[in-house]
């Protein structure tokens, strides 16, 4: 018994099975996390190695190079890049997408083991660091305070951070720019010297005095007492009265030689939010946790917790990645609702019956919900890709149900009982329904096989559409006949024709359309050659339009945020940097009303922490993070605002380089990088400078930056070893002494309410701010005599490269630029032209990479995909029609769909991005479907021995409704996608535009050109197979002769 017969005979079982599917789907929806993109583990592993005391070139030759050589043979390794800076070597290993990173990190560990003994002795063991998407902070808060500012860190730690850390799924909560309390004891070297004291002595005294010690226990009578000596200071002012020594019979107190300053740690980072002092707090989630859910919980807890804070502390959100995510998802869900609405309207328009429409519509939720089960089982998330996939599938899932239902209705109208009609009508069409589904699967399934980053994105799309469409077919041959048998009544002729009924108004229109179309086909069949030439001209003409198309990688969404990284002169002190940021602050405040919140930090924190991995650091760096008003509240787009900011930045003379980015960072930026490989610093730097100037001249090239930073000024103390030896000193002693005087020695800790604060002893700033100050530093040698630093060495200024970058085990400089107003592809072409016009010195290699490289790779993948899809579709069709010619007839509509794509992109001024390209690939499956429906019916008519032209015209007339119906459901389902302007719409609207353009055009082509080509191809007796076979039967020939 066939599946549809069973389902009609057992309606309750059928209903229960589908109810079970729906229940499981709803259960899944509750547990699916929401995210922006499918989870992808970028295949990056970093190896961090420290070698204290070595400068960047030492690090490069002694650490980075041997390690790179060792790593080079690791499996699946795609590329090695490295940065060698002072004390630190960072090697980044990029693997192929989909490589097993656990295995890779084991290989790395083995390679390190093998080579570690050959590395210099002082090198610390390398740390392997696996990069993860979830390490990007999900929420940023700006916290400002007035009176409470000095104690902000402690307050936040107790009141906000600790409670937040208890939320499930939170990775960590950190602060940037938090003021830290520190007790400085700043000595006057002249007084110290006068009293025969040194910094070290002060430190020792403080260390010796500021302590509590248990000293044993004592038994007295019946008791056992603990003994303790308590010397710890309770308050910082108590240090003033410490006795630090004696001089000429007089007691010298600490206050005599030094000032005690209980305050904030020296500024290395200046953090201002909306022009007020403040700190930034960011929250990172655990891998795999639901961003939207966590962000919501964080939001709720903060609004609850902030009630306990002092009233001058305000907490503002700067960036909440979840807002964009949930807005996009909301937007996309709304789009889907509209799509659903349009599909209902179309189906109702053509079928004209509520019950039939209901039956067809029911397949939509059922098929879509199955994809949620898939997501739940595979641990996927609800994201832009999965929702866009559902949108695409939405218009297609009704097709099968429509075909089945239409045939059932036809049978019922002939007077068959609904039950029998459901069974026998399904029996008639189920095979062709499955074949058309196979065609769609043939296009979407290869998507799941694509590798690389594009593959990660396409995988979900491929699976979701495949699963939904297959489910819809299953529903169409089980649920649809079952429901038809129950819901569709025998045509009751008694029903009065109402005035505004479907039969009165829409049906005649459709009938007239069919008649008109039949006439057009008849006309076209008489002018086959003319039509073919016209069509070819049109196609070739459209190919000429391609050069007007601009190519882009990923469409960038307006995420209402803007980040700027501004670099001032190398080595600039943070106080000076702060002045520039104050000015910048004012500018942004005055001229950018779109900016809602602005956090600007100047300089860098001493302990960079994790976040430093993602940011460039230095006392000369300004980091700006802004949140703009939401899209509908401002006139300028984020790109226009960014361009305006760039113009402002160009006006500031102190700014050396800057980079304004508008992306959320999930895909990195759309940059074109010129990579200059070469060992010699001077040649490559010179070339980089030259190229930078040339690239900056290209209109549309923005944020042109050279990755190699200017040499950094350095003061070096060059010691005279003879003099050192004479005085009984060595380098370590001198270096420690210098450090103690400048940076200070951490002598002890002040304990207060369970927290410890560093007590740092050092020279007062006035006595350590010039070269002569440094030279007059006094050191006491082991013999007890005072030595001036100037006596044993001299201080010289040097320039040192701050970092050495390498790629593919060669030194590299990158000149990167960001397209603004032009497409990535255009910029890359311009840059290639610039490179061709530049003289490249000997031994230097230049390569264009960056996002452009990824783009080229991805488009190659896409091209391959296109090829595979076409082949698979051909295979399916050839076997269905048992013919090599028929697939060609149908596939004639594919090139014309691309004509439609080109026109649609040009008209809407959309760039050909990866997403638009994907749309073009998907078109193959959707477009061919219409052709199959039509050609299949023509074949049928021919088999029924209708003359060729009549068969074509008749089939066209008969199939016009289904073709229009399936095309219109798909087109209208895409329409909201293409038209949406809300958050995140930039990502998917190109897909909608491509699909609509291609589909509209190819539908027209299918309706006119496919019949014409069928006419041309079949004239030579394609359908006369039977006659050919029968000609070989000669056994009756004699009879005919007798008769004739």
């Amino acid at each position, binding site marked *: 018994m066939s599946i549809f017969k069973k389902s009609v005979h057992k309606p309750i079982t059928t209903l229960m099975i589908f109810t079970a599917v729906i229940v499981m789907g709803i259960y899944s929806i509750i547990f699916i996390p929401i995210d922006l993109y499918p989870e992808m583990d970028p295949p990056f592993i970093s190896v961090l190695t420290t070698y204290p005391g070595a400068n960047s070139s030492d690090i490069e030759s002694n650490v980075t190079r041997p390690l790179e050589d060792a790593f080079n043979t690791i499996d699946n390794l795609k590329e090695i890049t490295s940065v060698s800076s002072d004390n630190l070597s960072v090697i980044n290993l990029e693997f192929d997408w989909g490589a097993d990173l656990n295995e890779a990190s084991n290989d790395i560990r083995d390679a390190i083991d093998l080579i570690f003994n050959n590395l210099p002795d002082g090198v610390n063991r390398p740390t392997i660091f696996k990069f993860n998407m979830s390490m990007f902070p999900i929420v940023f808060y700006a916290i400002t305070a007035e009176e409470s500012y000095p104690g902000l860190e402690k307050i936040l730690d107790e009141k906000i951070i600790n409670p937040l850390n208890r939320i499930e799924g939170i990775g960590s909560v950190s602060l940037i720019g938090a003021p830290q309390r520190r007790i400085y004891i700043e000595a006057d070297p002249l007084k110290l010297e006068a009293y025969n004291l040194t910094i070290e002595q002060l430190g020792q005294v403080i260390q010796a005095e500021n302590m509590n010690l248990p000293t044993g226990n004592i038994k007295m009578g019946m008791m056992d007492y603990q003994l303790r000596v308590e010397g710890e200071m309770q308050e910082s002012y108590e240090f003033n009265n410490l006795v630090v020594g004696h001089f000429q019979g007089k007691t010298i107190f600490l206050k005599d030689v030094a000032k005690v300053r209980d305050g904030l740690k020296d500024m290395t980072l200046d953090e201002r939010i909306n022009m007020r002092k403040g700190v930034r707090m960011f929250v990172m989630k655990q891998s795999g946790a639901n961003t939207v859910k966590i962000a919501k919980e964080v939001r709720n807890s903060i609004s609850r917790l902030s009630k306990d804070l002092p009233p001058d502390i305000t907490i503002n959100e700067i960036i909440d990645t979840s807002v964009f995510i949930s807005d996009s998802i909301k937007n996309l869900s709304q789009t889907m609702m509209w799509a659903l609405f349009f599909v209902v309207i179309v189906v109702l328009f053509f079928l004209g019956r509520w019950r039939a429409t209901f039956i067809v519509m029911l397949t939509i939720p059922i098929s879509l919900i199955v994809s949620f089960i898939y997501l739940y089982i595979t641990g996927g998330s609800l994201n832009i890709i999965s929702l866009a996939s559902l949108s695409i599938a939405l218009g297609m899932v009704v097709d099968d149900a429509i075909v089945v239902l239409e045939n059932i209705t036809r*049978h019922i109208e*002939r007077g068959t*009982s609904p039950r*029998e009609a459901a069974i026998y009508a399904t029996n008639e069409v189920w095979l062709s329904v499955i074949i058309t589904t196979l065609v769609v699967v043939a296009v979407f399934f290869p998507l799941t096989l694509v590798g690389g980053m594009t593959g990660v994105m396409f995988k979900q799309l491929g699976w979701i559409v495949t699963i939904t469409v297959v489910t819809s077919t299953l529903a169409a041959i089980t649920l649809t006949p079952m429901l038809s048998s129950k819901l569709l009544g025998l045509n009751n002729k008694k029903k009065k024709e109402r005035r505004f009924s479907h039969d009165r108004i829409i049906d005649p229109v459709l009938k007239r359309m069919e008649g008109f179309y039949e006439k057009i086909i008849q006309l076209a069949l008489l002018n086959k050659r003319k039509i073919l030439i016209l069509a070819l001209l049109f196609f070739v003409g459209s190919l000429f339009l391609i050069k007007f198309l601009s190519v882009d990688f990923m469409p960038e969404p307006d995420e209402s945020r803007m980040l700027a990284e501004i670099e001032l002169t190398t080595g600039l002190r943070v106080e000076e940097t702060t002045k520039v940021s104050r000015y910048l602050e004012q500018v942004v405040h005055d001229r950018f009303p779109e900016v809602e919140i602005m956090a600007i930090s100047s300089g860098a924190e001493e302990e960079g922490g994790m976040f430093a991995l993602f940011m460039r650091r230095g006392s000369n760096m300004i980091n700006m993070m802004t949140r703009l008003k939401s899209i509908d509240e401002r006139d300028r787009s984020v790109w226009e605002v960014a361009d305006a900011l760039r113009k402002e930045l160009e006006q500031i003379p102190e700014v050396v380089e800057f980079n304004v980015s508008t992306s959320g960072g999930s895909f990195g930026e759309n940059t074109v990088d010129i990579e200059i490989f070469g060992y010699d610093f001077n040649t490559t730097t010179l070339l980089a400078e030259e190229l930078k100037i040339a690239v900056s001249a290209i209109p549309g090239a923005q944020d042109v930056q050279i990755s190699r930073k200017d040499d950094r000024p350095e003061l070096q103390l060059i010691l005279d070893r003879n003099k050192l030896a004479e005085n009984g000193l060595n380098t370590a002693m001198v270096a420690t002494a210098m450090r103690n005087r400048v940076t200070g020695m951490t002598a002890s800790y002040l304990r207060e309410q369970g927290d410890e604060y560093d007590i740092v002893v050092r020279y007062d700033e006035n006595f350590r701010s010039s070269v002569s100050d440094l030279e007059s530093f006094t050191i006491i040698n082991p013999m007890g005599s005072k030595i001036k630093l100037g006596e044993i060495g001299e201080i010289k200024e040097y320039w040192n490269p701050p970092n050495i970058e390498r790629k593919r085990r060669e030194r590299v400089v990158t000149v990167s630029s960001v397209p603004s107003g032009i497409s990535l592809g255009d910029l890359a072409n311009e840059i290639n032209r610039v490179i061709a016009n530049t003289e490249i010195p000997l031994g230097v290699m230049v390569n264009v990479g960056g996002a452009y490289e990824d783009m080229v790779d991805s488009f190659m993948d896409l091209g391959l995909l296109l090829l595979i899809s076409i082949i698979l579709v051909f295979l399916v069709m050839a076997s269905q029609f048992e013919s090599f010619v028929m697939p060609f007839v149908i596939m004639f509509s594919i090139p014309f769909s691309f004509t439609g794509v080109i026109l649609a992109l040009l008209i809407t001024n959309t760039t050909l991005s990866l997403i638009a390209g994907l749309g073009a690939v998907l078109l193959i499956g959707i477009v061919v479907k219409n052709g199959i429906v039509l050609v299949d019916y023509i074949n049928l008519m021919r*088999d029924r021995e209708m003359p060729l032209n009549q068969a074509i015209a008749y089939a066209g007339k008969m199939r016009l409704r289904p073709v229009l119906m399936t095309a219109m459901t798909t087109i209208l389902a895409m329409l909201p996608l293409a038209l949406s302007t809300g958050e995140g719409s930039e990502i998917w609207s190109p897909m909608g535009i491509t699909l609509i353009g291609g589909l509209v055009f190819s539908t027209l082509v299918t309706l006119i050109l496919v019949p014409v080509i069928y006419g041309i191809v079949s004239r030579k007796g394609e359908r006369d197979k039977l006659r050919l076979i029968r000609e070989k039967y000669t056994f009756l020939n004699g009879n005919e002769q007798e008769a004739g």
Partner: protein
Amino acid sequence: MKAVMIIFNQANSEKMEFIFDRLHIRGYTWWNQVHGRGTETGEPRKGTHTWPELNSAAMTVIPDEQVDALLDSLRKLDETNKEVGLRAFVWNIENTY
């Protein structure tokens, strides 16, 4: 006794059973899914992609006086829609066992 052979579109299967029951015809033989073609206007019924529809056949041997009633019912059924198709043929039974 007469034998009545009825060839009909399988879409009418349930109605055929109903007719047999209604006329209290207990004995019959039924062939599911038979192929064929009408002499004058009937479309081929081949169960192929081209001609997807199928016929079924039923033969019953009934007393002479029941034949007219049966044919009358069959005609009524056929007249509800000629396209669906139904034909009945009657012949004599020489002997039975």
